[in-house]
């Protein structure tokens, strides 16, 4: 067990932007929410999943909504403080541990707001090892874990208790409800036991976010390339170095969908890359050939500063390194690829591990 203070929170926030794979929402707002909670209630404990008793009650805490909404209709602490009480009222169970559903983006840190207020530990794990746009796209789904009973509450005083037939139905109902409430709500979902958490979750996901954040921070301080530091530390692959020439982007059914077109610079002069995104970056093609795809992580980082550039923000003129990081082994299975691979998002391509791209470049 260790304590998460403000510096650790800053590192997790920066690293979670990389794990967001272009999506997951701007963690700055989540960081402010968590920092505010830590300042009011004191530091939060982060526990290794092995420290969690098998019979403990564990639950994900997550914000649900649209990234473009959260920076304007800001999340409020009161919802994160109340959401777990509501689930307990619904299920009659007391939860001893909270955990992020995704270590990528804003939701890496939203559980800290609940944990600080309730004086509960956060588990160093998550249900993705990255960010995904649908709430059924989590590792517990691969093992039969259920998203419900779940609870979702908003700032207008609405509370929704949900029991669903499948996790896809939970996604459909939650999406409709969050849209009705104005695209920003807090939820507690996927209640599970400690034993299930150990079997189902991506271990060490928050430590990984913190490591990546620290690597970028220290590289900046030492004036060395943050991009190369991250690649080295995380066994990543440099997929492309280029300048953004054009971005096609549209908002559809609550998602930011589009393609960024890059032309090569440095070692990639004369080559092109397209990065295809639906909230998250889901596929990257070099000269038309797929070099990386979901569930592996694809991220654009500004060349000089290493600043992660989300799909919502990437635009003409940016000079970026596109990197690929291998997905957690939970995802690299037949069931994992079926749930989160490129075909799941409508791309007619086969998943290939990002390491294979090394041979190409």
């Amino acid at each position, binding site marked *: 067990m260790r304590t998460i203070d403000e510096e650790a929170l800053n590192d997790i926030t920066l690293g979670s932007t990389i794990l967001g794979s272009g999506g997951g929402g701007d963690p*700055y*707002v989540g960081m*402010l*929410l968590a920092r*505010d909670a830590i300042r009011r209630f004191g530091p939060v404990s982060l526990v290794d999943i092995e420290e969690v008793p098998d019979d403990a009650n564990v639950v994900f805490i997550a914000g649900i909504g*649209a990234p*473009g*909404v959260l*920076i*304007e*209709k*800001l*999340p*409020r*602490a*009161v919802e994160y403080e109340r959401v777990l009480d509501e689930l307990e009222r619904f299920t009659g169970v007391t939860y001893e541990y909270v955990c992020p559903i995704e270590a990528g983006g804003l939701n890496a840190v939203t559980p800290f707001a609940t944990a600080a207020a309730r004086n509960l530990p956060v588990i160093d794990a998550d249900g993705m090892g990255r960010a995904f746009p649908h709430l059924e796209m989590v590792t517990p789904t691969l093992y039969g874990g259920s998203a419900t009973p779940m609870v979702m509450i908003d*700032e*207008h005083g609405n509370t929704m208790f949900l029991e669903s037939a499948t996790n896809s139905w939970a996604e459909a109902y939650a999406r409709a409800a969050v*849209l009705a409430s*104005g*695209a920003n709500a807090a939820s507690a979902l996927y209640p599970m036991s400690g034993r299930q958490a150990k079997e189902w979750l991506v271990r060490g996901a928050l430590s990984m976010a913190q490591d990546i954040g620290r690597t970028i921070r220290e590289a900046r301080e030492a*004036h060395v390339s943050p991009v190369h530091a991250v690649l080295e530390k995380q066994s990543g692959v440099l997929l492309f170095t280029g300048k953004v020439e054009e971005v096609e982007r*549209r*908002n*559809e*059914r*609550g998602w*930011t969908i589009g393609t960024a077109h890059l032309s090569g*610079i*440095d070692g990639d002069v004369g080559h092109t890359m397209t990065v295809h995104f639906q909230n998250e970056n889901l596929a990257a093609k070099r000269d038309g050939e797929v070099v990386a795809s979901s569930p592996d992580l694809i991220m654009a980082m*500004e*060349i*000089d*500063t290493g*600043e992660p*550039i989300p799909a919502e923000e990437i635009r003409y*003129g*940016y*000079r970026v390194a596109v990197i690929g990081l291998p997905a957690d082994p939970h995802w690299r299975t037949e069931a994992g690829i079926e749930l989160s691979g490129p075909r799941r998002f409508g791309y007619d391509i086969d998943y290939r591990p990002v390491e294979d791209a090394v041979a190409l470049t």
Partner: protein
Amino acid sequence: MSLRIGIDVGGTNTDAVVLDGRRVVASTKSPTTEDVTIGIRAALTEVLADVDPADIGSVFIGTTHFINAIAQARGLERVALVRLATPPQSLLPMIDWPDRLRGVVGDDVHIVAGGAQFDGAPLSEVDVEGLRDVARKIGESGVRHIALSSVFSPVNPEPELLAERVLAEELPDVSITRSTLVGRVGLLERENATILNASLLELASRVIDGLEQVVASTGIEAPILLSQNDGTVMTLERARLYPIFTIASGPTNSMRGAALLTGIEDAVVVDVGGTTADIGLLQSGFPRESTVALSLAGVRSNFRIPDVLSLAIGGGTVIADDGGTVGPESVGFRITEQARVFGGEVLTFSDVAVRAGADPMGDPALVADVPDATVAQALRIVGERVIHAVEKAKLSADDTPVVVVGGGGPLLRVVPGLEDLVVPEHAGIANAVGAAFAEAGGEVDRIYDLSGTTRAEVLEQAKAEATALAVESGADEALVRIVDADDVPLTHLGGGSAVRVRVKAAGPFAHQPATTPEGN
């Protein structure tokens, strides 16, 4: 009426230049004074010695005065922030501000029910009675400036407008800056800009009164224009209400000036002033803009402004006696009293550079006793820092030229490793030259209904309209271009029936500006 004057009011020096086209007719550099108008008067008097004021067609002014006020937290007024949202809010306005600045601007935050959803629908009804209570509290506190924001006001400004009317009714003598007029989507960043603007209003009013008086006193009757962050100009009337739009004009002017003085359009520009060296990249004659959320003196902003790296190296930078420490302290505008070459006691970067053979200033004999080892050590440190920053500013390992401007620019010639610099004639007044060539702009900011049309079509329509407005303000039709385009779908969850489009076009003045060019 064919000449133009460019004035740059910096933290250390006030520069003025009289230009006939691109030809420098007269120029001067004089110290910035506590009351900036004294320095401006001195500079104008000097450049007008052989010029008939009646020949001046326009006066362009760029100033870092307002960003310096924010950085030093002085000259700022206390501000009350009113946010329309659902109470209680957790992420309050000014949440991430430096303590010193917050101490000066105040912590007077009021949350009142109101605001809009992402699609413009009301979040909750505006609590008018609550607003009246807040107005009473603000009235009692004696604060004279309000910054007003509302959730999703860029999508639906009505709640903010209603609140403005209510607050103005209750507090007729208090200024109100509305967030929609200052920033874009991103509530905290928009509020930051709104609060800073409100806080600067009285200083802006004093400075602009002074500017008008001092220019008029020299017999010039031409229009006076102020540089904005994006390289276009605004009228003084508008600058009184929106001083925040001038705060990043310094780097824009110096980089534009470097391009105009050298004819080099792609370069790393190093602007060496009294306190800092600002390093940025010039691409096709314009500064490269920042790609990430930027901090203005520690306050997060979402303005599009040049990507500039500041080093604590300037003419007034203090050097330790053994040369082993360079800065970050600087004697700033007191260089002419405190630097050794001017008879002072403090060893500065100017002193070691003059000792090493840079263009003389003051009395070089006064630094003759500075040991060689001190000079070598200090110059080595300066060289390392500048070279590193230049390498960072470059986007690739090519032979991009490095252009040095600013009052302290020529000092870099004696620094080892920096022998290949381009130091143009008149390097010291590049900012004033850049200011004088600020552009005419035109902006469209409107909500378009998408029924029967497409996003691409309305974007094209807005671009054409912004271009026409820029031309109307005086931009050269052949050279006008789109400098910023931004569209926000107003129903981004389920359809897409309306879009808020902001487009800005800009171009160089085809002829002298008319009396009221609009750079908004």
